[in-house]
């Protein structure tokens, strides 16, 4: 039987699409497996440090939640499905492909994330942590999904229709996320800076952040020692958004 060549074209395209779809599915499940491995490693580290400091948290290898945290005065890491979930943490890092950086800050029952490329692409996101999983949203339909555990966080952030994959590490001050909100001539100017573990910073500024679809430009450099930045004749004063101290929440 002779098949018309245009139909062959369609069939070849369909076959290519199907094979790409299958390899995408396996790539995604591979990603999940890598996440599980990384979490297991973090779990082992956490178990070791917990033993060394006689912390009340004793994650069980079976993935059953350790309930010893009840006696602790300060919030303690919880364990869920073998993941050790810190209640307070800051994560920063570049997204895959160097198209921007992301900061993820968790403080008890609340999480703030910021993505920016130091230019026009940026988004503030909010969400509620649930057992080490985050599903966050922001203006302009920005979204972020992540898994975090002691020492690292991995996930995907979608800003302006572009998805960025990230695998980022936990950091402490002065690395982390900084925010400044000032009213300048009636407009709310909101700036954000991400200071990476190596000290480099990237920041964007929304000249009118109360808009439903705020635009952004490069933020002036933030002086980490004084927490100020000079934007023309306006001095911006920044606040650290720090999961460990709860500042900015």
């Amino acid at each position, binding site marked *: 039987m002779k098949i*018309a*060549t*245009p*139909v062959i*074209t*369609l069939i*070849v*395209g369909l076959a*290519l*699409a199907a094979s*790409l*779809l299958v*390899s*995408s*599915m396996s*790539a*995604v499940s591979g*990603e999940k497996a890598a996440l599980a491995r990384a979490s297991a490693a973090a779990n082992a580290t956490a178990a070791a440090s917990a033993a060394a400091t006689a912390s009340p948290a004793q994650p069980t290898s079976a993935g059953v939640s350790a309930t010893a945290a009840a006696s602790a005065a300060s919030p303690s890491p919880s364990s869920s499905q073998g993941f050790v979930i810190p209640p307070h943490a800051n994560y920063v890092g570049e997204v*895959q*492909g*160097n*198209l921007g950086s992301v900061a993820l800050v968790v403080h008890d029952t609340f999480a703030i994330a910021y993505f920016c*490329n130091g230019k*026009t*692409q940026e988004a503030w996101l909010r969400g509620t942590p649930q057992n080490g999983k985050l599903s966050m949203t922001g203006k*302009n*339909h920005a979204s972020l*999904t992540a898994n975090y555990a002691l020492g690292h966080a991995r996930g*995907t952030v*979608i800003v*302006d*229709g*572009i*998805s*960025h*994959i990230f695998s980022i590490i936990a950091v402490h001050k002065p690395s982390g996320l900084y925010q400044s909100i000032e009213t300048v001539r009636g407009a709310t100017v909101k700036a954000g800076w991400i200071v990476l573990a190596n000290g480099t910073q990237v920041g964007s500024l929304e000249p009118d952040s109360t808009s439903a*679809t705020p635009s952004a430009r490069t933020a002036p450099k933030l002086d980490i020692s004084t927490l100020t930045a000079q934007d023309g004749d306006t001095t911006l004063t920044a606040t650290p958004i720090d999961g460990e101290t709860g500042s900015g929440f």
Partner: protein
Amino acid sequence: MAAQWEPPAPTRLDPVQPGTSARLLVVPALVGCLVALTLGIYGRLHSPTGVAVDVIGFSNGATVKSVLASGAIGFAIIQVGSSLVMYGKVRWFGAPSWIGGLHRWSGRITFILTVPVVVHCLYALGFQTFSARVFAHSIAGCLFFGVFTVKMLALTRRGMPGWVLPVLGGLAFALLVLLWFTSAFWFFTTFGWSR
């Protein structure tokens, strides 16, 4: 005595038109609608993963897609040019014997280049409506593959009206250009070139 036999009144048989019938387009058009709807519904229902298979040599999926889409636009321009020659619209340039082959192969390459892009779009990002650019892109993406399917199936049928192929081809090209402007052009002007 039997009634006088009368010949049956002649039913009017329209002469069979060997020429053209737009009705031949019905089945290809329905299949095309089905393709466009399938892509749109899948893109809406499947929850986007943000990730798909990577292409070696590039650091991120968006750049790969933009490069592939730009390549597709290049071959699509060859498509339009070669069809103009085939239809005798280029007066100082008679249709050479290889023009049909050029048109077919540039079309096949265009289509094959778009396939990885649409798979990534649908699997990793989905059908989105959150901005005019993204909405236009999602709609045009579904329509493009619908129109392309109609055109491929229309090619297999003899006796289509003469306007069918130019209209379908022109529509596919216009949609592809719209897709490119709302994605690759936007991407390169927003992020610039990075590997």
